[in-house]
């Protein structure tokens, strides 16, 4: 009796392992762990920023921040997180076109965010704050820039994904990929909220 039960379980298990479903779940779990390492990466950058936030070496400091622009880009990024959620929703309803369209909206918002960030950086450089100006600006550009780099990578990934969905439709692989991109996107949103609070809000206060 017990043996035949074992037997059943084993077959069950084997099929589970080979099946696509299990494979995709595994990858999603792996991505969660990856995100954890990214959390540590950002924590270290935040810690360095906080340690160095007073080290302007007599040069320009947080007075160069332009809070209005930052609020706009924060709004843009938060909205994009919302639209990426809508994309996942459309995917679960099996609506391929809606899925692609929401991804396009998300990517456009993300691109706007990056454009705003690049403009901000250019203005700062124009006003004499570069990565080499002082420890404070080194930490600022590195922290904010790393977030921006993450967003840009997400953008490329998202565009690549649109082509894949167009070609292969909604299947276990693309479902996992969309889930992961959206998870990543929400994560970047959360990181940005910390950047907004710690760098900008506390900076101008």
């Amino acid at each position, binding site marked *: 009796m017990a043996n035949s039960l074992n037997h059943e379980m084993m077959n069950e298990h084997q099929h589970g392992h080979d099946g696509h479903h299990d494979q995709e779940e595994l990858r999603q779990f792996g991505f969660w762990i990856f995100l954890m390492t990214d959390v540590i990466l950002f924590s270290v950058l935040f810690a360095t920023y906080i340690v160095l936030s007073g080290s302007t070496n007599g040069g320009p400091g947080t007075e160069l921040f332009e809070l209005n622009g930052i609020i706009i880009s924060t709004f843009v990024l938060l909205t994009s997180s919302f639209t990426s959620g809508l994309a996942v929703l459309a995917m679960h309803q099996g609506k391929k076109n809606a899925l692609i369209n929401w991804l396009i909206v998300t990517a456009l918002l993300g691109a706007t965010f990056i454009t705003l960030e690049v403009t901000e950086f250019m203005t700062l450089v124009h006003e004499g704050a570069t990565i*080499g100006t002082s420890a404070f600006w*080194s930490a600022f550009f590195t922290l904010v820039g790393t977030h921006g780099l993450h967003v840009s990578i997400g953008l490329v990934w998202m565009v690549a994904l649109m082509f894949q969905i167009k070609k292969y439709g909604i299947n276990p692989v693309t479902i996992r990929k969309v889930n992961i991109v959206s998870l990543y996107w929400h994560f970047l949103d959360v990181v940005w909220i910390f950047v907004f609070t710690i760098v900008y809000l506390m900076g101008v206060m």
Partner: protein
Amino acid sequence: MLESIKKFASEFFVTGDPLIYGAMVSIGFTMIALVATLTYFKKWGWLWREWITTVDHKRIGIMYVIAALLMLFRGGVDALLMRTQLALPNMEFLTPEHYNQIFTTHGVIMILFMAMPLMFGLFNLVVPLQIGARDVAFPFLNSLSFWLFLMGAMLFNLSFVIGGSPDAGWLAYPPLSEKVFSPSVGQDFYNWGIQISGIGSLMTGINFIVTILKMRAPGMKLMKMPMFVWSVLASSVTIIFAFPILTVTLALLMLDRTFGAHFFTLDGGGNPMMYINLIWMWGHPEVYIVILPAFGIFSEIVSTFSKKKLFGYKSMVFALMTISITSFFTWAHHFFTMGTDANVIAFFAVTTMIIAIPTGVKVFNWLFTMFRGRITFQTPMLWTLGFIPCFVVGGLTGVMLSVAPADFQFHNSYFLIAHFHQVLIGGVAFGFFAGLYYWWPKVFGFTLNEKLGKWAFWTWNIGFYVCFMPQYFLGLDGMTRRTSTFGWDKGWYELNLTSTIGGFMMGLGFIFQVWQIAHSVRFMQKDTTGDPWNGRTLEWSIPSPAPEYNFAVIPQADEQDAWWEEKKRRAEGIVTVTEQPIEPIHMPGKSGIPFIKSVCWFVTGFGFIWGWYWMAIPGLIGIAACMLIHSFTYDNEYYIPAETVKHTEATLRGTM
């Protein structure tokens, strides 16, 4: 024109040192010989198909081990050069600059390019087999991890003949490692080499966590896993918390050097002390990352060669996990002397001493496992027995170092050098050797010559004590580390000479090991049983070497030491597992992308090191292209038909 080429060449190639010319010539010859041999025997295609593009964890494991042993050779030569320079007072064998470069590269290579890959090699060779899995969770990523490690290591090693080696110590403390004090490209080679291989290590950590948590054979509860698997889990968890810190730290140093940022500089508001905190937040856990798997290996070996269940399994698991967590709260003991608040020092002194407790628990568990066991003294067991006293002494001197007031005396002296080599050689190196000896027959399908193995063991061990025991006294006598020479008046020469002799004995031990392998390959003793040591865990239940799919049928593992229990039942004639039908096996397909992508990383790193953006940017584009191509690859997988599996099994088990 000619002048400017000459000028460039003199900066690009390292010149002026006969040792380095010798190295260049021998590297050149080896390369030519390698290319010629591969071409002559028409092996390029084979190399590409069977090794470079493989995603089989066992092959990746073998490549890690080979690379690690080559690096052990390089790091060992560095060590012997240093010991030669220190053999007698006023030696003029190495210049002080060269000495600085050698202790830097020796430290980096031994820890990052020897211990780490040897450890990953063992992870790959053993973990899937022990948990009854067909592969790791992410075979493609696994191959990428290996190639990133290799390219990083190559980049680092290249600095020896191109551009010049780094010389700011293995942890590259600023301001010494900043552009002002280290203007040569050596430090950039360091940054990029470690960074690239570090990404690989991080991914390996993720890969093995998922593998262990999600891919165990049915029935294998967490608390039934073999102890080595537990130690790999503990080590991998430590990796995923520690390596991102290293990534950031090196990236910031790179920004300082390449783009004139001011994180750790003396001017511009930078803070060198922040680097020292950050690097040790990685550095101390790193030491535990490499020692934890060694603990796992010893547990397996002690239990197998005593023919007893491991004593205190639960306390062992608890000890592993405690160590991996506590290791994050001790980093400041590396700079007690740099002027910190007394309370901070007290905190870190206490956390450091706390680690001794779980470590002691483990040692007692091993001793209790051996107690009243039927012990046999084959080479894996010898290394384990050699490890115990060595590690106990190393651990005790470590506790001595953690006593903050005493550390003001020992700090940066040869006492410290003796201590950490005792733990790193006696613990890590001996541990990984023990593992290699233990699993060798499983991996390669033949056993190693025991007699030569014993010679190797004894020369290594005696050499070890002869080399490092005198250094404790040298340290107490006031000899500081990184001293490149000393005078007759110091009275240090007998001890130093003894130490050097011990160093060369270890070199001899290494030669014995190489000889042992060569001899065993030549007079091959095939392991037909698949279970030469009468093992306890699942890897011994399959033929050696393991077929590419590992298990024809996924085993059931309801007990700890599942294979041992199964053997016991079979001996008693009890059949519990009914014969399973063999089904087609799903396998991941080969891929050249990991290799190509890693080469792109190499190109990118090399470009940035020299400030050649025409080279770095195409490299980056290559990396992105590889990622996209991989993302667009669907269905890179295949099935092994049941017939093939049956045929392979019959051949390997000798029933055909």
